[in-house]
């Protein structure tokens, strides 16, 4: 769907909502913050952010072009949905959320430049954005220098913590270790073949995975390979996998490369219902491009799957499909992106202010009981408490949840012994 169509879908909806609110003064009877009760701007915004008496501006910063567009499109959609819903409930501190969307174009310097533009020129109160660790690492110094607030939705390698970032996805221990423990126990995995795209997240993840496999699980790593982003020829590595016959293929190939990787695995006769494959980078979004028949049988370790069976999620999936079409799918990061605007709203209202420093301080302990993944809570280290789940890919492109950790896992971005 094009951007024009997206805004096309948006504006009539928003206009209708605004008209509805004007026509129905009775709305203020509902437990909602109305404009009249909104606190004065001078009191909630002491640092010159883009907050007026009726509006607050946030930034959405993702790639809608380039190799990451396949993945980040869903995040943009989820963030817009959350903003729409929050506005329908009366906004944040009585102010409607307006967003400015920028395209990082799968290019890390562009991300940094756009982040600076959003903070310096547009004075946005928060930025929802980034996907790859490379883009986050590029944006991070900008966020810290100009004191912005980034809600970062992707599962990532950890080893980072910032006052200016809320990590709404899972860090390494909540995904990598939990997944490896599961596969080694239930699939009796002893030898692992590690394959990933060549940038910071897969490399760091594999480093952590290797330590865990060799140190805690007593297994061995039979091969480790990286390919440039966007690479489409995997025949050679597939030959190596065939020769080394690992118990588990452990994959962190990202973006469009996944399509080539799974198609070629299938073509080379590697049957994923017999060969155990655990991926930490394929969600429902990627399967859309890969095709269910090419990946059926593979396991993915995530914290969220579209097929999760709980009332929060059913409501979320229905709202998402209503806004973006019946055929859209929702992946792990899409859900984490949806959490961003909500967590920000709750934090702002707890702090009673849009000021970045106050939000950063108020973040710890924020709970979101209506999260589609179940229940989440922000840890003082600015990551979320969350569960890890393992799903098996089905022919229809959905995951069947085969395992979930019984308890919420405490986020630990700097795990001892893995650095």
């Amino acid at each position, binding site marked *: 769907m*094009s951007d024009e169509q997206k805004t096309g879908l948006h504006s009539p909806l928003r206009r209708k909502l605004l008209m509805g609110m004007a026509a129905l003064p009775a709305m203020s009877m509902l437990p909602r913050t109305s404009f009249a009760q909104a606190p004065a701007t001078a009191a909630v915004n002491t640092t010159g952010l883009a907050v007026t008496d009726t509006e607050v501006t946030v930034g959405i910063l993702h790639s809608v*072009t380039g190799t990451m567009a396949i993945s980040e499109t869903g995040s943009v959609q989820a963030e817009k949905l959350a903003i729409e819903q929050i506005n329908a409930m009366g906004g944040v501190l009585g102010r409607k959320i307006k967003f400015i969307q920028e395209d990082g174009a799968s290019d890390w310097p562009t991300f940094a430049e756009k982040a600076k533009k959003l903070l310096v020129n547009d004075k946005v109160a928060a930025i929802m954005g980034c996907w790859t660790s490379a883009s986050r690492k590029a944006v991070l110094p900008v966020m810290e220098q100009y004191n912005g607030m980034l809600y970062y939705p992707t599962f990532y390698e950890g080893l980072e913590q910032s006052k200016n970032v809320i990590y709404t996805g899972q860090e390494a221990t909540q995904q990598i270790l939990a997944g490896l423990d599961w596969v080694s126990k239930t699939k009796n995995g002893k030898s692992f073949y590690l394959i990933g795209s060549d940038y910071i997240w897969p490399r760091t993840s594999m480093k952590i995975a290797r330590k865990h496999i060799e140190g805690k699980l007593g297994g061995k790593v039979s091969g480790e390979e990286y390919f*440039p982003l966007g690479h489409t020829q995997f025949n050679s590595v597939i030959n190596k996998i065939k020769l080394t016959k690992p118990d588990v293929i452990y994959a962190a190939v990202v973006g469009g490369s996944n399509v080539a990787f799974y198609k070629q695995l299938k073509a080379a006769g590697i049957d994923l219902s017999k060969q155990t494959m655990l991926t930490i980078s394929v969600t429902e979004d990627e399967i859309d491009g890969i095709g269910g028949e090419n990946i059926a049988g593979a396991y993915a370790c995530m914290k969220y799957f579209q097929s999760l069976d709980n009332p929060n999620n059913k409501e979320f999936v229905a709202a998402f499909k209503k806004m973006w079409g019946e055929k859209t799918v929702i992946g792990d990061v899409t859900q984490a992106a949806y959490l961003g605007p909500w967590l920000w709203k709750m934090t702002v209202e707890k702090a009673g202010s849009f000021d970045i420093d106050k939000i950063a301080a108020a973040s710890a302990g924020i709970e979101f009981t209506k999260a589609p993944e179940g229940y989440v809570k922000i840890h003082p280290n600015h990551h979320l408490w969350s569960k890890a789940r393992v799903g098996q890919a089905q022919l229809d492109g959905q995951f069947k949840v085969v395992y979930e950790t019984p308890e919420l896992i405490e986020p630990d971005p700097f795990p001892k012994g893995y650095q």
Partner: protein
Amino acid sequence: MFGDYSLGDLGAIFAMQGFAGLILFSVYVLMALGLAIIFGQMGVINMAHGEFMILGAYVTWMTSSFFQAYLPSLFSGYFFVAMILAFIASGSLGMLVEWGLIRFLYKRPLDTLLATWGLSLILQQAYRSIFGAREVGVELPQWMMGSKQVTDTIEVPINGIFVMCLTVIITIVVAWIMFKSRWGKQVRAVVQNRVMAGAVGINTEKVDRYTFALGCGIAGIAGSAFTMIGSTGPTSGQLYIVDTFLVVVFGGAASLFGTIASAFTISQAQSTMEFFMSGSMAKVLTLLTIVAILMIRPQGLFALKVRK
């Protein structure tokens, strides 16, 4: 580096890597052939070549969806229909582009680079508007998936064989058109001396248009074939364009034979090195080698002998 493998394993490695290299070779030839025709015969630098490929891929995707919805019983054969449609679609678009854009730039070959680069951006945005930013999944008929067991350790993917056969057929057809047919002779006459060719009654404008269309049409077939192994999205074409130019320039711009020889050299080197070092490293080494060779032989591996 060899220590971990037995002699039998090593034999299998080289056989399988050789085959992987052959598949890569076929892919390179398919990518580069259309570009070599346009670049070599017309002197036009077509930066939108990747987007013509992706048009073929999208046509294949639409054809597969159509067959699934309306002709499920004929699904196993849809790929052949898709390839023909891809050729027609990309070829027609090529003809349109030649008529609307390229023909004004024949005297300014460097400007074709800018114009077609702009065209590629426009096409990418058009694909994004029409098909969406996400990649589409092209479903393959059952017989095209899986692999053939040759020995215990050697297995070859069926779609790889399919791409190889396709490459052989297209190369033979193109060679026949260029070197045997009447039209091919006209093309080569126009390339060698446009004024003289016009004087003896060849409609040079028409020759240009059809040459460009043929090159784009082959790109469309390549795109169709790549749906089997790669991804189909608005910007996927960009993934191929660098490799494609590499193959054409390394081979010597004007020579079809050079294109094939260079595709073979690059693919085998890449595939063999990939086995013994990481994928990224193999790519770097391949590029460095090509740069070194081009410094010694700037005209590429095979250059036409022309009087200057």
